[in-house]
């Protein structure tokens, strides 16, 4: 089944890396097909930026998003830019400290705060990926961990896997609560 994932935030949060990790997990470690596309416009620095990943069991022809089934929002600007026209069935996950206004029912996690508690604010994107993985189950935990381990600098692998675990546990809890 074709799944369309959009990750949105601001330049510097590691949104593109997060998208790369999702695509790599799917295409190399989870036996699926995946394509990552990203915005290359001048707005890619500073303001809202996004990474878009299509995941499917079959080969993917059309690489662009038509209607995201999963939306991960890590800033208020991204929420305004990408979080307005969405299908009711879409799964929207937010960074609760950074997205200021959002419907109650959207699952949320203070990813940046949790990453800070682990000692590296910069891993907020990985906390968010853990949350997404646990909450949506589109990709396996193992594939995501493998993709993280082979994509981040070697000295930060352990930290990032811890960040992922924190997010993942929160995501699983959330999905169990709503199930």
């Amino acid at each position, binding site marked *: 089944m074709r799944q369309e994932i959009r990750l949105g935030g601001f330049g510097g949060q590691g949104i593109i890396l997060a998208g790369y990790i999702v695509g790599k997990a799917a295409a190399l470690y989870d036996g699926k097909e995946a394509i990552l*596309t990203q915005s290359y416009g001048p707005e890619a620095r500073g303001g809202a930026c996004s990474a878009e990943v299509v995941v499917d069991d079959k080969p993917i022809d059309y690489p662009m998003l038509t209607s995201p089934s999963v939306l991960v929002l890590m800033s208020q600007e991204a929420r305004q830019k990408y979080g307005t026209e969405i299908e009711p069935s879409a799964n929207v996950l937010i960074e609760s400290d950074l997205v200021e206004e959002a419907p109650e029912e959207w699952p949320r996690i203070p990813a940046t705060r949790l990453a800070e508690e682990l000692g590296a604010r910069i891993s907020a994107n990985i906390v968010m990926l853990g949350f997404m993985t646990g909450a949506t189950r589109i990709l396996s935990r193992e594939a995501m961990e493998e993709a993280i381990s082979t994509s981040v600098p070697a000295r930060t692998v352990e930290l990032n896997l811890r960040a992922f675990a924190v997010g993942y546990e929160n995501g699983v809890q959330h999905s169990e609560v709503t199930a």
Partner: protein
Amino acid sequence: MSENEEDRHVLTGRHFMNGDTACAEGAMAAGCSFFGGYPITPSTEIAERLARRLPEVGGVYIQMEDELASIASVLGASWTGARSMTATSGPGFSLMQENIGLGAITETPCVIVNVQRGGPSTGLPTLVSQADMMQARWGSHGDYPAVAYCPASCQEMFELTVLAFNTADLLRTPVLVMADEAIGHMTERVVIPDKSAIEHVARKRPHASAMDGQLPYESDGSMVPPMPRAGRGYRIHVTGLTHDERGYPATDAATHDKLVRRLAGKLTHFAPEIIKVEEVQLEDAEVVLVAYGSTSRSARHALTMLREEGLPVGMLRLITAWPFPGDRIAQLAERGCQFVVPELNLGQMALEVERNAHQSITRLNHAGGITMSPEQIAEAVRETMSCAREKSWSMSIS
């Protein structure tokens, strides 16, 4: 060279890789040892990757002062025996045209990658287009052979770059990889095979002893004379002027006609070997989509949708835009097929389809900036089928 150094040419394995990066790795796998270029979006990642990768294997990366110098350096490197390349986009491709012709008349194998963006001029620096297709064929002045590959995936960015180097050496002429921004900037799985599985066409070299009696530009029947290396003992004149078989300028009508006919004739001679297409469900197709590059992905998606509706649609995907598979188009036209040609320009390859089909076709055009949506293509096919009218009509997308 130790075995380890050898291994770094070919990154055998499965990767999740950007299209431009895959192109650079194709060059590495093909044994490219020289890149001269001037980085320009959306091709910059190719230069970036090779700036890091080439020095690892003793190769050379030079950032030149502009695109005129870039292509000139690539031609020079080729004469030393190197496999050489450059990568650019619209404005840079325009600047390279004159020396692409120099490469053609001096029969200098090399690879030029154009990751197409919206033009004319600086146009849309970061956004997709396919509007340089005719420039790829006729951009330099004079009659000359043009070979252009159109990758439609990151895997093909790798594979067709390898193939471009082989074709360049086979024909002794510059070969183009006409990618587009959507393919260059997307990231997909790329499988790089073992070094032993990568084909390598050796450049034809003169035999040391034979060179005394052999004229450097003498055709040996294959239309491609052997190419000596600069600095290896041969005294050879390399000139953009019309030259005789000795390589000396000879600017008379008879010599010119003979030389240009041989150069252009390479294309006809090797066409059956070079032309590559992918045929998708053509067996029972009444309407044929002719598409290439990123647009062919939208077309394939449309095709699946239309087949589900029970419509007999197929696709002829151009892997080589040049030489163009005109005979195949003619065969399909004779069978009664109609053609729909979606492309991100105002109708360039459509001209070739039309003149080979000898009939009106449906054009679906957008000047660029966005990939074509499958639904737009599907709608054009449905209309073509229901109207089935003879006159050419043009659709524009808002």
